[in-house]
């Protein structure tokens, strides 16, 4: 199969919401004015670990305009997870909407709702809390020791494997084919570290809770997971699912931080208490401290390699800091191995040892890349180290070992997301072409020669890194779509899939349009609203194109059959002789009728019925997209400044449903990764207080900081995906850390293993080497 016959898919159709957004149309959660809206605010813990001995809200309630103050005493105590994952969630149930214990600086203590922000702030200041401070622990390795403070010592939390040692999640597995490292000519071992990193979606988290005229709770919220929000809020507040409606309007970026029930439960609780609409909007500082982060990690890898380039053994031990709660603790940890270890053939032994550890630090969660970022930093750095050790070109070494079409890995079966995985083989790959394209674009060969003999303080170097990700979670993720036909031959496409800025509404419309032989603008897309749109797990795990796209394609195919059925009657023609094309049902003999005639016939004249269909999709495999990244850097060896001169990212995402949007996904992911690599890091005082919780001090790259980023889409055809498509959204973020580390090594002979590679760290490494 190929893309040549496609008319709408694989075309750069303009993103359907772009013009409205570019004109400032009020499309986001906070862009509505509700009468009588109260302002909700949360009181945050000033302590890293403390018990609330006494909490007195009487003075707060006296502040004029204050309508409610909630503490743990006012709410049901329901252990749950905030992770917006499929049910039952693989994350421990260790969170309470409000608790009598606080576990990090920035944990919830109480919540208020007031007529004005000023009154809400005044009320917060008047809540009297008596804390009993508890010993706190900030380091994962300290936290696992005997006698460390137990962060989750409450008896009612569930699914914590070892609360005494603060282990929120653990997973070990081994594939054994003989003695470890027996065949290896060289054994290399090293550790890599990633700090606390923030998503930095420019729209802060915001939720508005109100009531419809049936008295049902309506949550308008900035979320990637509307259906999980509905389920988890129902669980946490003990209200029936049918009493909740969740609306996802336009979302100002998520990157994983909005795959979380972060504000919806407490905003809903305030609304239920006051009977009034309530809004809680995080400040930027709150977004940094009290939303979610990437899991800081230490990844130790040890691998054996033969002189001929065979990788004999590979061991990965990952220790993640999940902070005070175990949101995504198990799954991120498992993905750090399951997305990385199968990528290269390992002849004999593979071992994975994973721990996610509680500390009295901000809570980690889902973040674009989802563990693969941490894993590939180690694996792809180690690949370069091994290549150097055996004197092989790093590109050749990778070419020799990466997973080929038709090949599988024992890791796929052994490691899923939070449970056993699914056996699969690679059914599409464009990695070889991606590598070749990247080599040519970065001018690898010429520059490698040119940079061999450099002098002076400014040194240039090249680096590369390859990777794969997944496309949805096999046998876990499910999406559904509904299409319904209108009189003019247009269609409503109702989807639970949560477009959070990615353009999924547009690409899903393209898929439907392709099947129905119409233009994309004849599809009116609505996403997502739990009252109106069918179920979808949401926008995460690189699933939307593959899983939701599969559902849309199926629904469109059903609708196509219904249209042909009616057209066959109109044209007096056999169904098998009809096809849909150019907004018409066309017969082999050239006769045709317009879709609007079909619609009108079905609605008003003959065997009256609404042409509409719903379909669901889930998958038994998760076909990985592949990527080859190449980077040229310049290192000032006298200041430690690293400048990226060129970054080339070649991505095989199967068929790009919309090449322009696919490029945009990758560009953004790459820059986020570059920003991680050279700049970003949350800093903390010795008592766990965040020190740089602002865009001024936690520096994400601006347009002026950004080097040339060049994305190339490498087409392949994935037989299990809609029109050959795989995912594209996450993979690009994983490249910069190892690629830049490899390039710095190539430029000046120092290996950076501790992100970010700040001038200070680079200069220290250079000094250590000399």
């Amino acid at each position: 199969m190929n893309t040549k016959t496609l008319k709408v898919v694989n075309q750069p159709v303009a993103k359907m919401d772009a013009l409205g957004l570019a004109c400032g149309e009020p499309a986001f959660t906070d862009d509505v004015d509700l009468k009588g809206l109260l302002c909700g605010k949360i009181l945050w813990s000033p302590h890293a670990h403390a018990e609330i001995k006494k909490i007195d809200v009487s003075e707060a309630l006296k502040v004029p305009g204050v309508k409610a103050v909630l503490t743990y005493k006012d709410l049901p105590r329901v252990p749950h997870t905030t992770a917006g994952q499929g049910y039952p969630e693989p994350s421990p149930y260790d969170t309470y909407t409000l608790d009598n214990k606080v576990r990090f600086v920035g944990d919830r203590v109480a919540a208020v709702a007031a007529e004005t922000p000023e009154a809400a702030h005044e009320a917060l200041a008047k809540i009297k809390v008596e804390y009993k401070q508890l010993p706190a622990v900030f380091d994962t390795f300290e936290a696992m020791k005997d006698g460390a403070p137990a962060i989750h010592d409450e008896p009612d939390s569930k699914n914590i494997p070892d609360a005494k040692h603060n282990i929120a999640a653990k997973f070990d597995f081994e594939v054994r084919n003989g003695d470890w490292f027996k065949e290896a000519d060289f054994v290399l071992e090293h550790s890599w570290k990633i700090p606390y990193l923030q998503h930095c979606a420019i729209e802060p988290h915001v939720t508005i809770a109100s009531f419809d005229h049936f008295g049902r709770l309506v949550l308008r919220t900035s979320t990637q997971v509307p259906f999980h929000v509905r389920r988890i809020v129902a669980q946490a507040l003990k209200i029936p699912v049918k009493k909740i409606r969740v609306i996802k309007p336009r979302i100002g970026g998520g990157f994983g931080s909005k795959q979380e029930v972060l504000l919806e439960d407490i905003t809903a609780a305030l609304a239920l208490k006051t009977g009034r609409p309530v809004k809680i909007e995080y400040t930027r500082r709150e977004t940094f401290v009290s939303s979610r982060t990437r899991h800081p990690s230490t990844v130790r890898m040890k691998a054996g390699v033969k002189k001929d380039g065979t990788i004999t053994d590979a061991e990965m031990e990952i220790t993640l800091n999940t902070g005070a709660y175990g949101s995504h603790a198990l799954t991120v940890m498992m993905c750090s191995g399951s997305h990385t270890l199968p990528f290269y053939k390992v002849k004999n032994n593979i071992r994975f040892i994973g721990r996610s550890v509680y500390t009295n630090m901000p809570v980690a969660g889902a973040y674009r890349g989802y563990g693969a970022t941490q894993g590939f930093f180690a694996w792809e750095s180690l690949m370069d180290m091994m290549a150097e050790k055996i004197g092989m070109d790093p590109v050749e070494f990778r070419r020799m070992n990466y997973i080929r079409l038709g090949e599988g890995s024992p890791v796929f079966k052994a490691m899923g997301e939070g449970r056993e995985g699914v056996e699969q083989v690679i059914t599409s790959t464009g990695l070889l072409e991606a590598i070749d394209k990247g080599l040519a674009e970065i001018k690898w060969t010429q520059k490698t020669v040119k940079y061999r003999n450099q002098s002076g303080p400014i040194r240039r170097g090249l680096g590369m890194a390859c990777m794969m990700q997944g496309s949805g979670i096999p046998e876990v993720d499910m999406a559904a779509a509904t299409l319904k036909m209108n009189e003019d031959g247009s269609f409503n496409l109702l989807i639970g899939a949560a477009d959070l800025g990615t353009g999924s509404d547009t690409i899903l419309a393209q898929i439907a349009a392709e099947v129905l032989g119409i233009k994309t603008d004849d599809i009116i897309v609505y996403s997502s609203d739990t009252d109106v749109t069918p179920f979808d797990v949401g926008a995460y795990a690189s699933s939307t194109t593959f899983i939701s796209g599969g559902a849309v394609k199926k629904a469109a195919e059903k609708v196509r059959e219904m249209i042909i059925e009616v057209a066959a009657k109109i044209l007096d023609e056999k169904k098998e002789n009809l096809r849909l094309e150019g907004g018409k049902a066309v017969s082999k003999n050239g006769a045709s009728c317009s879709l609007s005639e079909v619609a009108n016939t079905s609605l008003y004249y003959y065997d009256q019925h609404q042409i509409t269909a719903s379909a669901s999709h889930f998958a038994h495999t998760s076909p990985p997209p592949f990527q080859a990244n190449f980077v040229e850097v310049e290192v000032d060896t006298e200041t430690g400044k690293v400048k990226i001169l060129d970054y080339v990212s070649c991505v095989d995402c199967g068929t790009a449903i919309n090449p322009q949007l696919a490029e945009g996904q990758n560009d953004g992911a790459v820059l986020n990764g570059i920003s991680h690599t050279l700049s970003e890091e949350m800093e903390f005082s010795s008592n766990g207080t965040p020190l740089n919780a602002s865009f001024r001090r936690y520096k994400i790259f601006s347009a002026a900081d950004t080097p040339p980023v060049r994305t190339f889409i490498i087409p392949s055809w994935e037989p299990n995906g809609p029109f050959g498509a795989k995912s594209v959204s996450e993979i690009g973020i994983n490249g910069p850390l190892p690629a830049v580390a490899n390039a710095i090594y190539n430029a000046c002979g120092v290996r950076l293993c501790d992100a970010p590679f700040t001038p200070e760290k680079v200069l220290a490494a250079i000094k250590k080497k000399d």
Partner: protein
Amino acid sequence: MTHIKYYAFPQTVNEALALLLNKKYKAMAVAGGTLVAKTLPDTVETYLDLKNLPIKGIKISGGNLIIGAGASFDEIDHSKLCRSWAGGVVSSAAAKCSSQLIRNMATIGGNVARPHSFNIFPVVLLGLDARVKVVSKAGAKTVDFAGLYAPGFGLKPGMECIITEIIIPAKTKKWRCEFIKLAKTESSWESYITLFFAAQKEGKTITQARVAVGALSPKPFRASAAEKAFLSGGAHNAATAFAMELDSARAGEYRSVAAANLLKRFIKGLV
């Protein structure tokens, strides 16, 4: 900000000063308002907005480069006069201030009025022997830039006096200068260190040398030992002296080493 009773936008310096000195108003002058607008002290009751004062122009007068205190970073960045002065160092320093939107709003006067480690201009003005014109109860006077932050100055800019002009002396017009913001990224607000290097060359001889250091503390300083070694000729000696000075200023190893390397590079680049 909620304590504000008056919002004033005087048209002349005298009007502004009168308001500032009138006890009734408890006024504080705000220029660009990027750093202070959200953090006015609660005691301030009048927001004295200087935006309409005729103190924005950039001109040459008596051979000196005169920058009106109300000139924004963006105006200075794009000013032909600034771009042609001392190799354009004043403009390129202005361009290194965090972001275009801040550069549109922030002014040079505001940037020097209150000392802050990450302000851009103080280190440049110190190194260029700049003078500052201030207007106070006692009338207008011109002081060395260095004197503005000295304990003896006695007039709080924006509270007791208004800065109206920055005067960059004629002698610096042909100086070879460099401003460096050593930071994680180009548009970082924070920096490890800011450096201003300058040299006046007559033939092959260096007749004037400036090594100024910012970002380590709110007040920039000149590295006198480094300047002395710079004058006596050796890039290596100057760098060594500079590293020692930075070390004793508790700059830490990274800043000391990197800054000394940059000074060495600057001096070598002069030949």
